[in-house]
């Protein structure tokens, strides 16, 4: 599985503490919200990178194994995500969306998180267009469909919903709280 990221760090063959020392340094050069793939062969790195991410407020997305190589995916902490105010007026709760999906209504779930976040767990059938690519890919969406926009906490989807509305989409709802609280079915790549 290849997951698109903003940066790939090669820490293969390095023993503890070097994978985390290098990750920390690389993280400093990333923009908030960007995703890094850390390749390591030190088995202890999985637990340590999770603990480190937690203490630094970064988002640990998951780890895949490719032979002896562990690939850890992290998303840099982003200040904008702690803001509570959502501006887009049309919202739907996680539970309401889950019910809608169960009834089998023909709807579009648009997931605007980064590809790595999407890979490690998304609503079955959700379409993935990261927020940063939405402007260029907006014509992949059908204006006649109901579109439910989801991200991790409802903030990126708030921005995406506004962007869609500005481009003439009338049937758009922002999903709150988003994937962080999602208790419905999950699909992984």
């Amino acid at each position, binding site marked *: 599985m290849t997951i698109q990221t903003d940066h790939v760090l090669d820490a293969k063959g390095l*023993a*503890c*503490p070097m994978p*985390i*020392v290098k990750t*920390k340094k690389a993280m400093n050069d990333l923009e908030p919200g960007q995703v890094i793939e850390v390749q390591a062969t030190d088995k202890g790195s999985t*637990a*340590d990178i999770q603990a*480190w991410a937690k203490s630094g407020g970064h988002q640990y997305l998951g780890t895949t194994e490719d032979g002896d190589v562990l690939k850890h995916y992290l998303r840099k902490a982003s200040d904008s995500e702690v803001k509570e105010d959502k501006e887009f007026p049309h919202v739907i709760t996680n539970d309401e969306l889950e019910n809608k999906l169960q009834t089998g209504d023909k709807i579009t779930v648009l997931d605007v998180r980064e590809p790595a976040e999407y890979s490690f767990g998304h609503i079955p059938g959700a379409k993935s267009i990261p927020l940063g690519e939405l402007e260029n890919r907006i014509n992949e969406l059908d204006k006649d469909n109901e579109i439910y926009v989801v991200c991790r906490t409802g903030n990126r989807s708030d921005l995406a919903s506004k962007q869609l509305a500005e481009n003439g989409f009338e049937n758009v709802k922002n999903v709150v709280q988003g994937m962080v609280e999602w208790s419905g079915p999950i699909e992984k790549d």
Partner: protein
Amino acid sequence: MGMKLISAKEVTEKVLSDQSLFILDVRNEDAFSDWKIEGKHIEHLNVPYFDLIDGVDEIVDKLPKDSEILVVCAKQGSSEMVGEHLVEAGFKDVFVLEGGMKSWSEYLNPVKISDLKDGGSIYQFVRIGKGCLSYLIKSNGEAIVVDATRTVDAFIDFAKDRDVTIKHVLDTHLHADHISGGRLLQERTGATYYLPPKDAEEVQFDYEPLVEGNDLSVGDTKVTVEPLYSPGHTIGSTSLIVDDKYLLTGDILFVESIGRPDLAGKAGDWADDLRNTLYDKYKELSHDLIVLPAHFGNMSELDDQGRVHAKLGDLYEQNAGLNMEEKEFHRAVSENLPPQPNAYQEIRQTNMGKINPNEEDQREMEIGPNRCAIHG
């Protein structure tokens, strides 16, 4: 003075002595809360190494200025980094555990339990970081090893230094918490490997059955090892009586606790067997027997020489697991059990010869505390 490496053996001496020891454990919080170096006079501070990459300024106030500091991590590398920061910050007695918790988990401390009647001796190999106990009984040039851990060089070198040949190797049961060194010892020394057949139905290699009535002897002097079928922890668990004086209980009975019956099947299935073994079968034995278990759970179970042993009669008075009503006993061994040992299914498969992980993987599988006991 700078930073010095210190071996697991030297740390063991410090732990067993009355000296106080300050340990800065730089593993992540989960690993630290799971297991750590324990001892009566040890003080810990846990700060993960990744919070100390740029230096130790934030923790200097929490560290002792004038005494030794032992820095511990998983494999050594991170504690060296932190150790160097400590030296730069002016700390003088800084030690780093060589090989980290990996070597702590593997180190065996051999201690003599006693001489035997006709000239032999019995030794206990204390795996202090993991709570496993192995035994070597030697007499007149020959030896038996019981419940060997996979670090078999310790037994081979010990036997070589004393000019004895390891003739028999046996496991009291199919272990679920650590990888047995039995098969490796057999390969390396040509010894015969014995297993209780009821635990060995699925094993993929040849072994001799360890069954009640088939005494084993060692040396020309009369040191007999009498197997005693004592199911409960596993269906095949077998105890040994050595030299009419020592009762090797495997994982059935410990000094401060009793075995758990749930690691190879359902707790309920073997709870009755365990009850029978502990409350009937053992009770009929001489209460003067010295119990030598295959594990310890607390450092308090070690005596001042680092040995784990107790008189059977004393355990019938003091061990809570031997003093329960039947209902209470069943509840204790089937409900609210401690978490199962790390990778215990894979460890059992390895001990059956079904999978053959490499040494690095074996190490990872064994990392963590021992969890074979139920404390009453």
